[in-house]
């Protein structure tokens, strides 16, 4: 070897040397087999923006702060359950809330949590308009502590959803930390990031002790947690920006659960990995085919009904979502989660997929194929077509739009021409608001209180604020207003049922599906995961209850069977969750993906070698 080459090789050798030092090769995480102990490792797809809960809005900031705070009430699998609130009452006029809290609650810095802290938190949210949840507290006049453990909240006006929305999202912040900060910074508290660990203090089960930006947040168990110390000694929330890396990390056991978006395609591979379970939850976002109800012909109710007969929701769920969802309801309100209590089952089968019925209606309306080209013309004889706009980033909705377009073209006696247009969504969005498109596919979130129907269907909310369909019906206007001012639960239910009947009858929008999402988590190391049907696995009940597995020996050298059946104490996937793809039991480890990858790599290497050999042989005689 020439001396020149030596100079080239030295850095390479140095790298190899570093690589092979023992420090690089050892990785030991001691596991104690007790009820208490262990480090629970969760991964989120993104880091938090700020640790200031008053200002925090991004999902990931809220998730990171979640283990540190308690609330008065919290939504648990579709039911509003009291947490810090021991007693709760509302005055008959609905304007005064009286809440008594438990008296054994302390903050992580040792100071007791009292009614003063609750009143302070409510007042900040009500008075500081920059706070993220200010919207839920707009109707609050002020709150005051009546005695050490009783707080009264006085409302400016009736706000029926206040408990379900405002009080259920409100983390109780310590007054002794935040009052001085508020005085010092004023409005600028909106851009203040509290110091860790001294200022990020709550009363929740885990206390934030360390944050390494872009890397992880470390929490330690709060020994004096009022509901009893959580079992895990430590909680670490990692930030893994690439979903495929996160999936590998779960498979390797480097993290215990991944709380991010996972494509259903990888579920079989994950299930065939020993020790990995899948939690499936139902998202309540309603993906719908929306019509601009002010544009011809979508201002004709019968035309919209004809459209309703042309949509086969079940088939969209079966094919495009490969079973990962449930068909949308005709009354828009979903039959699960917090909204289940207001769901009207009578409108369930209002329309069934029936193209002949659609043809009948269209014939009656005058949409007929007069020139015999296979497409129906408008009643005045001119060519007729409309457009469907799905967002460019969601392949599922693009495919759903194509399916709808296909069904419309198959209407007997001449199809309806629906053109699927995929444009940059930032371009389409303003057009929807200004009623410049015909139809669109949108996913919208409901609220936890049924009064959200006001926002979606009241005339006053048209265009700019939530009623994207530009739907207007005086009766729905009155009913949705009544939802906001009626206190009696039975009456509210009647109103909600009536609204759903009207929506199903007039079809301002067609809800196509509600999606289900998978979340991978380890079942071999931990047990006691709380798995709600409508929420993720990273929740306060999991944090309180999850503990090291005591039943199975995870350190056993013989690998457990590769069958995906979870150990007995771990619940199987939720009953409504379909198992869309059964994993092949013969595949060990990461099965299919590994093999494909190997083959791919081998082909590439062989190709490279062939190319090099060919080149060398051709040039060498020269």
């Amino acid at each position, binding site marked *: 070897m020439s001396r020149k080459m030596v100079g080239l090789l030295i850095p390479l050798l140095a790298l190899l040397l570093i690589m092979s030092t023992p420090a690089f090769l050892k990785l030991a995480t001691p596991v104690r087999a007790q009820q208490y102990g262990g480090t629970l490792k969760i991964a989120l797809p993104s880091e938090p923006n700020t640790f200031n809960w008053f200002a925090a809005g991004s999902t990931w900031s809220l998730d990171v702060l979640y283990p540190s705070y308690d609330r008065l009430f919290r939504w648990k699998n579709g039911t509003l359950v009291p947490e810090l609130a021991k007693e709760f009452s509302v005055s008959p006029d609905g304007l005064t809330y009286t809440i008594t809290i438990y008296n054994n609650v302390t903050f992580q810095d040792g100071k007791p949590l009292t009614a003063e802290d609750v009143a302070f938190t409510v007042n900040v949210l009500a008075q500081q308009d920059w706070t993220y949840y*200010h919207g839920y507290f707009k109707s609050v006049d002020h709150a005051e502590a009546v005695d050490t453990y009783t707080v009264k909240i006085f409302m400016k006006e009736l706000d029926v959803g206040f408990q379900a929305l405002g009080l259920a999202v409100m983390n109780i912040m310590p007054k002794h930390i935040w009052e001085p900060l508020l005085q010092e910074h004023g409005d600028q508290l909106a851009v203040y*990031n509290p110091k860790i660990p001294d200022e990020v203090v709550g009363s929740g089960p885990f206390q934030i002790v360390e944050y390494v930006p872009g890397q992880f947040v470390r929490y330690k168990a709060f020994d004096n947690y009022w509901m009893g110390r959580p079992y895990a000694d430590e909680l670490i929330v990692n930030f893994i920006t690439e979903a495929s890396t996160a999936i590998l990390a779960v498979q390797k056991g480097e993290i215990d659960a991944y709380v991010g978006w996972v494509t259903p395609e990888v579920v079989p591979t994950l299930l065939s990995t020993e020790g990995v379970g899948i939690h499936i939850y139902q998202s309540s976002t309603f993906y719908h085919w929306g019509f601009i109800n002010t544009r011809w012909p979508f201002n004709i109710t019968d035309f919209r009904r004809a459209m309703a007969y042309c949509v086969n929701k079940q088939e969209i769920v079966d094919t495009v979502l490969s079973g990962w969802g449930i068909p949308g309801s005709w009354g828009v309100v979903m039959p699960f989660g917090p909204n289940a209590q207001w769901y009207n089952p009578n409108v369930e089968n209002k329309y069934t997929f029936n193209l002949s019925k659609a043809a009948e209606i269209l014939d009656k309306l005058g949409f007929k194929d007069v020139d015999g080209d296979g497409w129906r013309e408008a009643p005045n004889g001119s060519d007729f077509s409309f457009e469907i706009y799905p967002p460019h980033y969601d392949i599922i909705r693009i495919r759903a739009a194509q399916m709808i377009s296909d069904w419309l073209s198959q209407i007997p006696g001449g199809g309806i021409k629906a053109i699927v247009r995929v444009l940059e969504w930032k371009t389409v969005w303003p057009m929807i608001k200004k009623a410049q498109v015909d139809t669109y596919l949108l996913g919208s979130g409901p609220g936890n209180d049924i009064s959200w129907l006001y926002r979606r269907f009241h005339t006053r909310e048209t265009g700019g604020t939530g009623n994207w369909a530009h739907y207007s019906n005086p009766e729905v206007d009155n009913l949705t207003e009544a939802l906001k001012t009626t206190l009696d639960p039975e009456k509210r239910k009647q109103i909600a049922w009536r609204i759903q009947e009207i929506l199903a009858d007039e079809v301002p929008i067609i809800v196509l599906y509600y999606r289900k999402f998978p979340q991978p988590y380890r079942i071999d190391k931990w047990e006691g995961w709380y798995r709600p049907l409508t929420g993720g696995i990273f929740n306060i009940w999991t944090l309180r209850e999850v503990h090291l597995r005591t039943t199975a020996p995870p350190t056993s050298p013989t690998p457990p069977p590769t069958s995906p059946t979870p150990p007995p104490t771990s619940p199987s996937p939720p009953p409504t969750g379909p198992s869309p793809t059964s994993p092949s039991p013969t595949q060990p480890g990461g099965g299919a993906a590994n093999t494909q990858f190997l083959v791919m790599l081998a082909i590439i290497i062989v190709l490279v070698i062939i190319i090099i050999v060919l080149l060398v042989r051709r040039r060498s005689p020269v």
Partner: protein
Amino acid sequence: MRRVLVRRAITSLITFFIAISLVFVISRLTGDPLSELIENPEVAPETVEALRRAFGLDKPLYVQYINFIQSTLVGQLGYSINYKRPVFDVIMEKLPYTIALLIPAITLSNYFAYRLGVESGWRRGKKFDISITSVSLFIRATPHFWLAIVLLYIFGVWLGIFPIFGAVTAGAEYASIWDWLKDYLWHYFLPVSVIVIRATGAMFLYIRNSLVETLGEDYITTAVAKGLPEKIVLYKHAARNALLPAVTVMGLRYAFIIDGAVLTETVFSYPGTGRLVYEAIVYRDFFLLQGAVIILTTSVIFVNFIIDLIYLYLDPRVRYR
């Protein structure tokens, strides 16, 4: 020499001014950073207006511009809209990681590219040259993220000798700074390898072709005819001249460090400014973007200055002019 430096300083200032003005204008052309909040059902319109006031976005554009120039001159970068924290803090959280990742990676890859390029150009048409060239073409055609995932799979999952995410082990306690360093380097190896491999492949061809061209020059023939040893001809006569055009390209890669390595950072979940800048663009975080561009412009100007100095060293003609 002094006149050159003064002229340099003046043009640098003008460049800086134009660059930050441009980013001010361009970022504001992309739309409203608060638009996503407007569409969020949880957020009240009052809140959006309050935030607009807090960030000074309610003022007329020219006032915003004057404020921006003023605060830049006193070294204030403002507050990030997305992070709701001072821009300086947000960038400084990530910049050390990026510098630690990219400066060694760029230096190593420049060095590898230089040595390989020179050796390969000298042996033009030989087996060594052809095999190295084909490999580098292959690497050039490989997307960053693909290479990253392949390395991750081989070393992280199959062999299991490297961690698959992060820059340090989460929650680890270190007995000493050396333990920390070991842990850091262990996490560092795969991301840095990806960047070195990719960048070497890209720069190699540049240097090789430049050298091949130089080897055709008369003075090389003269040097060989004089009977100089091969090593002196190659490194003193040929390589030095071949390096001239490459120095600018190699040097400027240091300047763009704040752009980071988005894809590598993302795959390895390595914290860095690449993703930060990318997200600043996506979320229209004007102030964060402006802060990043100020740093970028400063470093481009600085690196250009250094490159000029290197030119002085490499090319005596520049020195004596």
